[in-house]
């Protein structure tokens, strides 16, 4: 094998055309960074969202059908008001029956003004009304204990942090506390964005207190926690069949399905942005093709000499492929390293966290980017190398 000398010649040719080679490599670097960074961003987004939603992947959420015949029109809407469409107690009982033995949790929901201490400004926050017996099935506490009394409430972790609320703090609900004052008994563990109840910036009161304070008997949604995830679709179907048999009165959402759809959408977005990165790598590949063609044209005579003194076609071909490969490997590896920086910067800016950067599913994007970069360079080197190898030695020797 004489590959060594041809590899050496390829290396030296790159070295003597350092500027040209560096510019071609720069294209590869940019392409690899684009692909890998976009892949890292997409993966980080999926991980961030899946972490936020991980607690709600086992639920079926039933809400009043929007746009159809409603069972009731509650009061108002807006601050201190209930939503206009609700689920009646009778509907809830049907849901509970068809979804048994799974737990059906009725949820009341509104938002209202509240004051956290004498002289403090009013704030507006979401308020959930839950049956005290259901709360442990839905929410975990970070601090304190579950509330069973109508004089108490739970607060979300972000709410507590933002407003310096501790277990034992008092919160006056309503304008000038007209709905009453509740004592905080516990702080709810962070749940992130959720389909059922998003309690991080909210307070949770008893259903009875909620009903009395806002004059509500119907529910805004019902959450069914499904024990066996394989049954989630069956539970959804059973509820729809029972409640929507004559008219569509509720919308039933299978959170697992929704999450799957969401992740599919994220996957598509990631693929799309990565493909845009891929286009930049293709453009870089064209520049590799261009400089390889220049290299062949400049070295036609040299190729003729090589062929005339006994170099085989495939040896000449490999000399140029080595050149493309060196550009590809060096450019892609530099791009791979810089992708970490790019991924860090993009994750910091767009997700405010870099904790998903070094997980294997993110790192693999760098491997993909580097591999794709090398393959693109090799592919773009094939035609010039083939052309060089198939030059007629006599014509090549005559070339000036």
């Amino acid at each position, binding site marked *: 094998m004489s590959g060594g000398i041809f590899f050496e010649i390829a290396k030296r*040719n790159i070295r003597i055309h350092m500027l040209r080679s560096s510019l071609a490599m720069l294209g590869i670097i940019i392409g690899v960074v684009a692909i890998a960074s976009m892949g890292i961003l997409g993966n980080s987004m999926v991980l961030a969202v899946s972490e936020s939603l991980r607690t709600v992947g086992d639920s079926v959420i039933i809400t009043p059908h929007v746009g159809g015949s409603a069972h009731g029109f509650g009061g108002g809407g807006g601050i201190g008001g209930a939503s206009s469409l609700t689920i009646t107690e009778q509907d809830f009982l049907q849901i509970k029956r068809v979804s048994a033995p799974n737990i059906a949790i009725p949820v009341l929901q509104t938002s209202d003004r509240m004051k956290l201490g004498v002289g403090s400004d009013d704030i507006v926050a979401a308020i959930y009304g839950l049956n005290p017996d259901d709360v442990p099935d839905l929410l975990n506490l970070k601090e304190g204990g579950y509330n069973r009394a109508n004089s108490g409430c739970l607060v979300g972790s972000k709410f507590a942090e933002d407003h310096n609320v501790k277990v034992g703090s008092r919160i006056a609900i309503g304008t000038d506390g007209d709905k009453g004052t509740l004592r905080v008994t516990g702080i709810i563990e962070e749940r992130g964005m959720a389909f059922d109840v998003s309690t991080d910036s909210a307070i949770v009161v008893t259903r009875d207190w909620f009903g009395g304070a806002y004059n509500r008997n119907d529910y805004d949604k019902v959450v069914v926690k499904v024990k066996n995830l394989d049954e989630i679709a069956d539970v959804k179907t059973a509820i729809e069949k029972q409640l929507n048999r004559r008219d569509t009165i509720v919308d039933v959402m299978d959170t697992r399905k929704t999450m799957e759809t969401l992740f599919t959408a994220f996957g598509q977005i990631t693929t799309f942005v990565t493909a845009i990165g891929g286009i930049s790598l293709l453009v870089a590949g064209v520049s590799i093709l261009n400089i390889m063609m220049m290299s062949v044209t400049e070295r036609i005579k040299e190729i003729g*000499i090589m062929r005339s003194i006994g170099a085989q076609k495939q040896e000449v071909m490999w000399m140029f492929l080595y050149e493309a490969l060196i550009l590809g490997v060096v450019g892609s590896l530099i791009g791979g390293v810089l992708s970490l920086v790019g991924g860090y910067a993009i994750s910091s800016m767009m997700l405010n966290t870099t904790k998903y950067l070094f997980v294997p599913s993110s790192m693999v994007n760098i491997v993909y980017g580097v591999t794709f970069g090398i393959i693109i360079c090799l592919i773009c080197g094939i035609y010039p190398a083939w052309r060089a190898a198939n030059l007629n030695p*006599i014509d090549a020797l005559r070339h000036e």
Partner: protein
Amino acid sequence: MVPLPETEQKVTAIMDDQPVMVFRDVVKIYPLPAGDVTALDRVSFQVDRGEFISVMGPSGSGKSTLLNLMGCLDTPTAGDIYISGTRIGDMSDEELTNIRRDRIGFTFQHFNLFPLLNVIENVTFSLMLRAGKDVGTKRAKEVLRSVQLEEHLYTHTPTELSGGQQQRVAIARALINDPDILLCDEPTGNLDSKTGTGIMELMTELNRKGTTIIMVTHDQNIASYSNRTIRISDGRIVA
């Protein structure tokens, strides 16, 4: 050597221990849009081992075509060419390349050294083609000494050498695989007369030691170093 087909071996077997090169009724026609051009017309000659032959002729006489055929860079339209008993007419590109690598040494008017390689690497290039990268420098140094190139120049690149020195390196490169024939295309065409004389004395010395040399030249003085001259005109050997 690449093993030849059985039928070819029969042909070459008869020619074994025969002349280093034989042209028998060789015709070379270039098909062109304006009509076929006959560059060589029934050319026959033979070169014995140890001969020093010059090929002379005016421009367009067919010298380059003859050189290309002798160097196995091209194949004849008709007729037979034998290199050390091996008929090259039906050989594949790979086989012809192996013949060029193992049996023929080339030198050119413009030296044609590889600019990216130093003297030693240029000389060992052909050896590397045959044996791989790690061929060592012993053989190259031997050959470079035989072409009288100073040792301190071995690590220089071609651009750092004079024309005469470059031609000596080119001759060393051509000799490294111990070829049957050294083909020289205007070996002094790019050198001043004093340096050219030095090169010709070197070639005479190489020939005296047994190297078969075929040299294409325009220069009658240079041709006088050879012991036989083939004159070609209009594609035919005239003397």
